[in-house]
């Protein structure tokens, strides 16, 4: 039907069946473009809404925000699944069909494999855009924890001398920010009072780590930058290596090799150095955390030791 096994010596002519592949490819590109436009439109509208909801949500756990956040990501996932399902059905289906009918030795087989590669590359671009928008949406979760921490500190200053013993009336000073209910004995009559921290005070535990990470983010970035260098250096060296394939000039070759060796040395250094920078970050983060919630220091130190092992 498609002249697949046509033994005419019309090697230059593009086979008739190619038009089906072309059409599929065009439709695939157009389809993905439309999906990308949808993702962008939706994310662009959702992001400011999410930021506003986070501000106005007065639930302790920000559950309204989280529900909307999940719903927004749900739509993006839905779009991504649609692309994946369509790829399976409309692109791979067609590819396998032709791949089984056209011999690899045929002059035109490259049209079939090019079709698949082009469509697959375009799909990767789509997936990258999906990741981009997911990251943008994730940023709406960011809270400036310094502001929340300051509110907790301010509240503590206000209340620390406001309480008096229910038995004798003497002032009971709250010596620190307590994280949970605790017994405090009156310094005058020794009677045990029960102190219940405010909801805000109790929340200190929940923001402590995030705040510590916020304060040491610059150290983490230093680690990440160093860590990413390994791949960059690898690719630079790889490019140089490829350039030597057709090079015959001995002088150029020797210069290139010297550069390659230097890059490799740098790469090895980075492989050793990046973990050290991570250790610096980790210790600094835990130190900050312990400053914020000193009552949890014993537990945190055990967690730190565990992390070192992994």
């Amino acid at each position, binding site marked *: 039907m498609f002249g697949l096994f046509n033994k005419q010596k019309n090697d230059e002519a593009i086979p008739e069946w190619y038009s089906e592949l072309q059409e599929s490819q065009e439709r695939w590109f157009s389809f993905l473009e439309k999906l990308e436009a949808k993702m962008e439109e939706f994310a662009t509208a959702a992001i400011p809404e999410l930021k506003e909801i986070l501000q106005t949500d007065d639930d302790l756990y920000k*559950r309204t925000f989280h529900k909307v956040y999940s719903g927004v*990501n*749900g739509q993006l*996932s*839905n779009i991504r699944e649609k692309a994946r399902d369509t790829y399976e059905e409309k692109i791979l289906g067609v590819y396998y069909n032709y791949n089984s009918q056209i011999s690899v030795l045929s002059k035109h087989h490259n049209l079939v494999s090019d079709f698949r590669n082009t469509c697959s590359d375009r799909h990767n671009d789509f997936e990258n855009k999906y990741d981009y928008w997911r990251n943008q949406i994730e940023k709406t979760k960011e809270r400036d924890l310094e502001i929340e921490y300051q509110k907790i500190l301010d509240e503590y200053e206000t209340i620390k001398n406001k309480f008096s013993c229910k038995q004798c009336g003497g002032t009971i000073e709250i010596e620190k920010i307590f994280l949970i209910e605790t017994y405090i004995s009156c310094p005058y009559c020794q009677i045990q009072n029960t102190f219940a921290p405010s909801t805000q005070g109790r929340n200190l535990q929940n923001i402590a780590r995030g705040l510590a990470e916020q304060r040491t983010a610059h150290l983490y970035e230093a680690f990440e930058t160093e860590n990413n260098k390994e791949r960059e250096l690898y690719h630079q060296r790889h490019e140089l290596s490829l350039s030597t394939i057709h090079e015959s000039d001995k002088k150029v070759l020797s210069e290139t090799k010297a550069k390659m060796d230097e890059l490799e040395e740098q790469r090895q250094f980075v492989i050793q150095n990046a973990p050290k920078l991570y250790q610096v970050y980790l210790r600094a983060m835990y130190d900050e955390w312990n400053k914020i919630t000193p009552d949890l220091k014993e537990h945190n130190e055990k967690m730190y030791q565990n992390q070192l092992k992994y």
Partner: protein
Amino acid sequence: MFKKLFGSLTGDDKQENQNYEAEQTSNDNYEDDYQEVEYDPETLHGTHYDVEAFDEEVANRAEAWIADERESGENLDEKDIQNIYFNYRREVYTEWNNCDSDQMIRFEHANSLKYTGVQTSGFVKVDDNNPFLEPVHGVTLRDYTAMCLKISAGIDYQEVCKAMGIESVIWEELNTIWPQRMGEDTSFTVTTLFGQYYAENVTIPQLENLKAEISAEGFANLEKIKTDRYFYEELAGARQAAYEYGIDGAQWILENFGINLADFQSVAMQWMTEQNQNWNSSDITEFHDYQQQKQKEYAAKFAAEQGGNIADDVNF
């Protein structure tokens, strides 16, 4: 004779025969008959060999490979070594028991603490002297789990404290320290055991009279998810779909099926434990696919309530 059944054993002939002598039968045609291997109920090792011999064989093969790698200049860190042992354990187990991969995985679960230092639900090994399991203010992990179950079922924590005969200050310490222990224990014994108690829906005499309200319909649905795995997977899929459409899934299950979160999670843990104990990969795939299918169905329903998904009008 046994060598034919068990393939490439490289151990000493004499030693093997000492272990196997008792198992000999008069049937000479091992290649033709399927020999039913008997497994130790606790370790899931075949009873026709010693565990020490097994561990020794694994070590021999692993160390030989490690030596080869090191000789050819490979740098092996601790994770690599653990990986090598892990793979040889699988190889020797499968060879010595002539079993399929499901049996091998059950074996791994039963021995996860011994070989990887991490517990598996359904196979938790509890040591009486484990400091992580010491009672906190006299309250054991089991007691603590029983309290958590009541609270997650919707009973006010003050009521639970009263029934236990403790002040709320004590409860707050319990609710801080037990989770801390779970985080500190790298073998996950505390976490896994907590999960096991949760799955068993443990209760203690002090709390027996505290019952969360449940409707007749909720009670019937609860019984159904305990016994009908498909129904459980359907609700699990529906709950996932709910979150994807901005709905509080736990609340949705309560409103539509009358089942509270504690009961639901408890049943989820029961199914997971049972799955670990009776590992069967084709069942697992079937239930996974079924849940996915149900999730899609409920997602379509939720989407319809929202006026459809935003990309519904984009077609290939």
